[in-house]
């Protein structure tokens, strides 16, 4: 008798599941009701196109022709991977990726380091520095073409001022050797603030007391920087590199506005090349294979990188 009573009590106290009161649906059904629409949307706009693209990549389908496509096996892949022009595109992209990340990390970290020193008006400076990031890439591309103008461009004038090289003697976007650097400069100008912000978050996450302890442990500023600051900001820095890497791998708008891939094909990044194959030459099957190759590359590189990032975080 004395055992039975508390059990009854508990049974009464447990409220009936909310689900059972909502038109007889189970908890699970309600969960599906919430997730369902997003899953359907995801399937429709992400997963299905991906599978369809893979399917098309094995055909000679052309979206501007009505005739049926034929399956041609791996021919598209074979042609892309043996095509010298594609490799040149890949190289241009690699050059762009490497140097934009290199400069953005270097300058972004340096700026963050300076801004993090508490001085008057550093909030104002942060806002000013972050401005380029807020502009539209098309606008940035457009006005940098003016800055790069040999006759009236501010950029050329500044170069002349500092180096003495005649402003009208070179054209950043017209020269085969300079154009790849022209796009690196603009992207760096625009996106360094982003890297800076992430680095700043990293720097601000390090409490002052760590530096005080190091000070008492007689570590020089130099040693504090290399053994405390850098390792503790590294995970943040790597995250910034990941974001910038993925973004710049699919860089399109800024470069199209600036150079349109030229002169020749010196700044023809893979995404621009791909767009031309798909929507100017209408080689849909070929472009699909191209897209699959790029996707696998980015996905592969990013996975390896994320693994490395997690390792650094665990340290």
């Amino acid at each position, binding site marked *: 008798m004395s055992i039975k009573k508390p059990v009854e009590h508990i049974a009464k106290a447990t409220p009936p599941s909310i689900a059972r009161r909502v038109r007889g649906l189970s908890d699970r059904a309600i969960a599906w009701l919430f997730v369902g629409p997003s899953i359907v949307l995801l399937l429709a706009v992400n997963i299905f196109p991906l599978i369809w693209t893979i399917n098309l990549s094995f055909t000679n389908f052309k979206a501007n022709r009505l005739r049926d496509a034929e399956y041609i096996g791996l021919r598209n892949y074979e042609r892309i991977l043996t095509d010298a022009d594609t490799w040149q595109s890949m190289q241009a992209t690699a050059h762009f990726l490497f140097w934009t990340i290199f400069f953005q990390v270097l300058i972004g970290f340096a700026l963050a380091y300076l801004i993090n020193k508490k001085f008057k008006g550093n909030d104002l400076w942060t806002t000013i520095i972050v401005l380029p990031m807020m502009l539209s890439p098309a606008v940035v591309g457009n006005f940098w073409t003016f800055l790069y103008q040999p006759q009236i461009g501010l950029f050329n004038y500044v170069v002349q001022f500092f180096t003495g090289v005649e402003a009208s003697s070179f054209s950043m976007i017209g020269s085969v050797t300079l154009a790849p650097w022209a796009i690196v400069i603009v992207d760096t100008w625009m996106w360094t603030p982003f890297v800076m912000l992430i680095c700043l978050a990293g720097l601000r996450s390090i*409490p002052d*007391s*760590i530096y*005080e*302890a*190091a*000070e*008492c*442990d*007689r*570590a*020089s500023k130099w*040693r504090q920087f290399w*053994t*405390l600051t850098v*390792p*503790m900001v590294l995970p943040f820095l790597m995250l910034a590199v990941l974001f910038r890497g993925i973004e710049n791998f699919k860089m399109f708008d800024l470069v199209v506005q600036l150079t349109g891939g030229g002169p020749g094909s010196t700044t023809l990044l893979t995404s621009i090349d791909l767009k031309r194959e798909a929507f100017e030459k209408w080689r849909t099957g070929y472009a699909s294979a191209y897209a699959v190759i790029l996707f696998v590359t980015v996905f592969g590189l990013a996975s390896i990188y994320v693994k490395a990032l997690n390792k650094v975080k665990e*340290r």
Partner: protein
Amino acid sequence: MAEVSLQNVSKSFGDQVALENVTMTVPDGSFVVLLGPTGAGKTTILRMVSGLDKPDSGQILINGEDAASQSPAERNMAMVFQQYSLYPHLSVRQNLAFPLKSPMLRTPEDEIIRKVDAVAETLQISHKLDNKATELSGGEMQRVSIGRALVRKPQIFLMDEPLSSLDAKLRSDLRIELKRIQASLGATMLYVTHDQVEAMTMATHVGVLDHGKLVQFGSPREIYEDPVSIYSASRLGSPKINILPAEIFPGAPNGATSIGLRPEHISIGEGVEVKVGRVEHLGDQTRLHLKIGELDLMTLTDPHTKLTRGDTLSFLPRNPLYFDANGVRIKLGA
């Protein structure tokens, strides 16, 4: 190895006065405990001596030399922070080795390993050497933080409540160990604590701080037996000194408004009648809660006492401490 001297040191943070005109000499090789409630300025003194903060006015002398121009590194001191301040991305071993890797010391690699192992042994954290600093419990972090100070031989130790988050057993072990290490190195120690056992057992000198002012400086016995004020008297002693109106007992000197009674000032036998409240048997001693009318007091008695709640007994003060209306001690015969 080092005498530390503060001369009229003042420090404010905004309009908050942290230290006001503190003058104090910490003799070479002494163990000075700073006492006072939170916000009394104990940590501020440590930070001044370490060089992490600069005084607004006044001087800090180390071995008679003005330390104002010396960086924390040049002062050759080791500090244990209240919030541990371990290097979170490093292992315990790397944390402990960090000070030894200073180019100022140039410790050879095998000696670093030997010293780190020895310190870890002392602090009972050998089994955690390869853990990351963030994977430790509070007590373990605190020990690593002490270890980081002990691995090298500084001339001054600055410790901010270094044993506060340890369990009782470890605390008493380390109390003895710290005292031993300090004595064998002959280093000067400035030590902040709330624990009166630590103060009484380890200190050669105690400094009592009240709202940024140093109100008394002397040996622990001096502070205990001869406090300058109620405030000072309340810092040491367990149970705490009983402060009662002076007129309850006969024989109060002129101007005395309060009488301070420690257990040893209470002579049970005859005199004022009191009622026994709670009786706490602590094993080695028994705490008696007594009531005189509405007033409470606490004293110690024989561990095997037969007294129980509701009993009455009488006592008279024996050599008690008297204080005036401002809480300042009135010395008899002065």
